[in-house]
């Protein structure tokens, strides 16, 4: 089964605007993690939210988790051109297990 599906697939905004990306998953999880990937590069960990948490902040990032709907959102406020990248959610079912990644959202922030 697929896990961690993001929408939208692509998002294009202007600098200063907020960007919201959503992620849905199908099975129970221990935590959900968001990663950023610049074109052809490695994955950079952004934020982790545990299944017993509903919201978390880190700088300009805000993540929410709704376990009843099996969904999460990543909000980037006051976006910058440097935020241009692909963003992936990844779920972990527990026990330091594998991460299951979604297909990602390609974010383009225009100056």
């Amino acid at each position, binding site marked *: 089964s697929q896990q961690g599906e993001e929408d939208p697939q692509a998002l294009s905004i202007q600098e200063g605007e907020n960007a919201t990306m959503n992620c849905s998953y199908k099975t129970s999880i*221990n*935590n959900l*993690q968001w*990663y950023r990937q610049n074109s*052809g*590069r*490695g*994955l*950079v*960990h952004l934020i*982790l939210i*545990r299944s017993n948490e509903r919201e978390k902040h880190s700088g300009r990032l805000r993540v929410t988790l709704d376990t009843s709907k099996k969904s999460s959102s990543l909000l980037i406020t006051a976006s910058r051109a440097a935020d241009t990248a692909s963003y*992936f959610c*990844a779920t*972990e079912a527990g026990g*330091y*297990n*594998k*991460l*299951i*990644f*979604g*297909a*990602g959202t390609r974010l383009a922030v225009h100056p």
Partner: protein
Amino acid sequence: EPEVTQTPSHQVTQMGQEVILRCVPISNHLYFYWYRQILGQKVEFLVSFYNNEISEKSEIFDDQFSVERPDGSNFTLKIRSTKLEDSAMYFCANSLQETQYFGPGTRLLVL
């Protein structure tokens, strides 16, 4: 901040050849993973490794793949007889707790 490193950054090989991808994890991390990302597709889990043995592997991780920590620090992924469809970016990751830290990846091209 400690980082995960991977070598080589790029590798081109002929079909049927063996390749070894190397990773130097963050020194006190205990859990090790390999993932791959075929161009334009999701990041896929290959294998997890803890306490010098495989803890989980995916369907992709068949008999042509193997992992080891030859000297207690480096973590390697060997592909015994490469196929065209093995062309992908291969990421090493490691963790101490839930957060997985990824290396920059090795781009493997099988011709």
